[in-house]
């Protein structure tokens, strides 16, 4: 069996094309999202401990810390879950996830559309959907 071998070409020789930048962007946004999720888990454990919050509710909160995600949970008071801090965390996670996601969708679709013109159309549609959905998402986060 062939062993995978690391390629150690320095960045100066590799060049910084748009694809390389987006490759780094995908990894960087993934790491940023792990940070947001960790903050969500710690927050849910701290705020939900008194109510014996279950693991599924903790995960639902950590993956998007919006107060509507704990409305059906057995909580005495929803006020701590609807603070500006949590709205900022939710906003950060949402913007990071949606920009990571729109690029991910484009990468997948590029594999199925080989013509340059088709790819441009697909990219345009994805960006338009992103620009339409992102403000709606931010509105939902800040008004819920």
């Amino acid at each position, binding site marked *: 069996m062939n*062993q*995978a*071998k*690391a*390629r*150690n070409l320095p960045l100066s020789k590799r060049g910084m094309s748009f694809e390389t930048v987006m490759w780094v962007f995908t*990894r960087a946004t*993934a*790491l940023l999202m*792990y940070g947001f*999720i960790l903050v969500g888990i710690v927050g849910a454990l701290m705020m939900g401990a008194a109510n014996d919050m*279950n*693991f*599924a*509710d903790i*995960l*639902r909160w950590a*993956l998007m810390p919006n107060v*509507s995600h704990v409305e*059906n949970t057995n909580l005495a008071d929803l006020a701590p879950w609807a603070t500006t801090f949590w709205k900022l965390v939710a906003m950060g996670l949402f913007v990071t*996830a*949606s920009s990571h*996601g*729109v690029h*991910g*969708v484009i990468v*997948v679709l590029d594999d*199925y*559309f*080989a*013509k*340059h013109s088709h790819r441009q159309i697909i990219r345009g549609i994805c960006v338009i*959907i992103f620009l339409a*959905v992102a403000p*709606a*998402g931010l*509105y*939902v986060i800040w*008004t*819920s």
Partner: protein
Amino acid sequence: MSLKRDVSLSTALRYKGQGPFLTFILHRIGGIGMALFITLHVLASFVEGRGWKIGDVINDIYINPVFQIVLLFFVLFHVINGLRITMLDLFPTRLIQYHRQAIKLEWVVFIAIYGFAVISIIGSML
């Protein structure tokens, strides 16, 4: 440039890429699934707030425990597999030689967290 594949669909479906291919394809399915889910969920929540019944109907589907168990499979797999990819990509010299072991470890972590979450969801239904 036109799309040119050297294998038939039947050959492609019989492709034995094993573990790495399974993670690759599950990551893609999960990613596309999440993109569709989040887009619809955001739009449904937005129109629900404006009194449109359709938003309420869509979000009721998302609240369903069976839907959440299926969704959580793809979301958790995408999250855990993404962490493996990021770690291997950031430290290729040290880690890439262990990529198959990393996949096995990833499955152990995924099954533990997902299993616990499924038990928790089913428990809340009872």
